[in-house]
């Protein structure tokens, strides 16, 4: 199932993301996803997230699919050139994995192999374009594919709270031009800013899923404010988490905050993307509290 069909039906599409481990035992990840994420539409599988080497995204997606979940195959341009990316996109489609998310990817210097060669032969825009070409039955060099071409739901990301929001919107416009069907956003903590962003982004006519992180504690928020691009947690939220450490630790405060943001933003967007960061078990509770 392509999630674009659900957007087309006007459904509020909920996704979450998981990261493969650095190792070959994926059973635990798949079991956890089955247990906690079965109630949502699809599960993103990250691609060497933060430039830290992990097990193959495609292999993990295949196992997720076998287990009855709908995976979204995230592909970054950091580690593969245009040949490798095209063959992996075709491989995904051959396995019945038709939901993809095209990203540029963090630089190799940000991760655990800083000496690795950063590829960036393509970027998020040209990768979306590549997927669009494959759908038309051609590879990037214009050679014809054999047999029926693949069909994807082509996702992209955008950072609505970025301090470079104008540059982000310009890039979003190019992603739409290159064939993006839907967008997932970086984590949002300030609903007003997201709503302002959506006022500007709605001109592109593509469904946007609000990105949400369940904040774990004040320290995590301060860390994100210092280090994570496009994320800003306002001070009053940090205070809220700091006020009752036990409640925060149990996840109660974080889930309340996330549910509040979802409720405030829901009228302005077409779906939700949850970055649980290890708190997958809290997703069902969050959904309930947010009224989803």
């Amino acid at each position, binding site marked *: 199932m392509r999630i674009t069909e659900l957007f087309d039906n006007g459904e509020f599409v909920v996704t979450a993301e998981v990261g493969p481990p650095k190792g070959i035992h994926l059973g635990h990840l798949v079991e956890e996803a089955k247990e906690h994420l079965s109630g949502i539409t699809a599960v993103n599988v990250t691609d060497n997230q933060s430039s830290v080497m992990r097990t193959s995204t495609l292999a993990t997606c295949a196992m997720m699919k076998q287990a009855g979940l709908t995976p979204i195959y995230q592909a970054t341009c950091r580690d593969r050139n*245009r040949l490798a990316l095209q063959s992996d996109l075709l491989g995904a489609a051959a396995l019945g994995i038709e939901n993809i998310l095209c*990203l*540029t990817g*963090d*630089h190799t*210097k*940000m991760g655990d192999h800083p000496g690795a060669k*950063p590829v*960036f*032969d*393509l*970027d*998020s*825009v*040209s990768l979306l*374009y590549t997927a669009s070409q494959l759908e038309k039955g051609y590879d*990037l060099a214009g050679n014809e594919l054999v047999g029926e071409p693949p069909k994807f739901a082509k996702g992209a*990301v*955008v*950072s609505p709270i*970025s*301090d*470079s929001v*104008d*540059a*982000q919107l*310009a*890039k979003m*416009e*190019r992603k739409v*031009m*290159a064939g993006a069907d839907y967008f997932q956003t*970086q984590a949002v903590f300030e609903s007003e800013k997201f709503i302002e962003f959506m006022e500007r982004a709605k001109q592109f006519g593509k469904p946007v899923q609000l990105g949400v992180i369940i904040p774990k504690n004040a320290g995590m928020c301060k860390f994100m404010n210092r*280090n*994570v*691009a*496009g994320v800003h947690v306002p001070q009053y939220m940090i205070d809220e988490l700091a006020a009752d450490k036990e409640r925060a630790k149990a996840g109660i405060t974080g889930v309340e905050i996330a549910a509040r943001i979802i409720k405030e933003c829901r009228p302005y967007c077409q779906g939700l993307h949850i970055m649980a960061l290890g708190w997958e078990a809290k997703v069902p509770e969050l959904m309930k509290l947010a009224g989803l």
Partner: protein
Amino acid sequence: MLITELKANEVIRAAISGKVFVLNCHGCREIRFPEHEADAFQAELTAEGIVTGIFTTEYICNDENLSVILQPHAAAIQAADTILVFSCGVGVQTVAAMYPGKRVVAACDTYALPGFQGVTPLEHDCKQCGECYLNLTGGICPITACSKSLVNGQCGGAKNGMCEVDPSMECGWERIQKKLTALGRLDVLTKAPVQLRNYATDDLVNK
């Protein structure tokens, strides 16, 4: 060495607008310049009556020197809407930085050849990518000003306008965004077709 080749005439024509001041850099010894094609094209533009002046010099990458030798041409530059620069990528970037409010257009693509790399001042850098993008980016080189050498816009990693890879460096695409916005020409970027790098530039040079 570097080699500069003229962009296709249609490509240059699409990038210029209004009256044009032409600046040629016959450059350093390490560069090969397409003098005859450049002359022929400039003669065409002159015949059309849109040229306010043509000035041929060398080492335009040296901005202090350049600002002095351009003084006699101030009126012709003032009268022009576009400064059309025939030089390597560093030269075009130097002129673009010197005239932030003008449309500065690169007429050439710059390729690398084995050997000395000519005079490269500290401020601007050209990796001789073979397909000069400066006309899309307001004269700021995306290959050297962006840590990932992205050619389709900003990545999601900029924080406070600084690059994710090097927080002491302003994000190149943030600079490009600001420059294009200031020039009122953001659509040059947003409406441009999807850009794909061509790494087979050796073939192009030998064509």
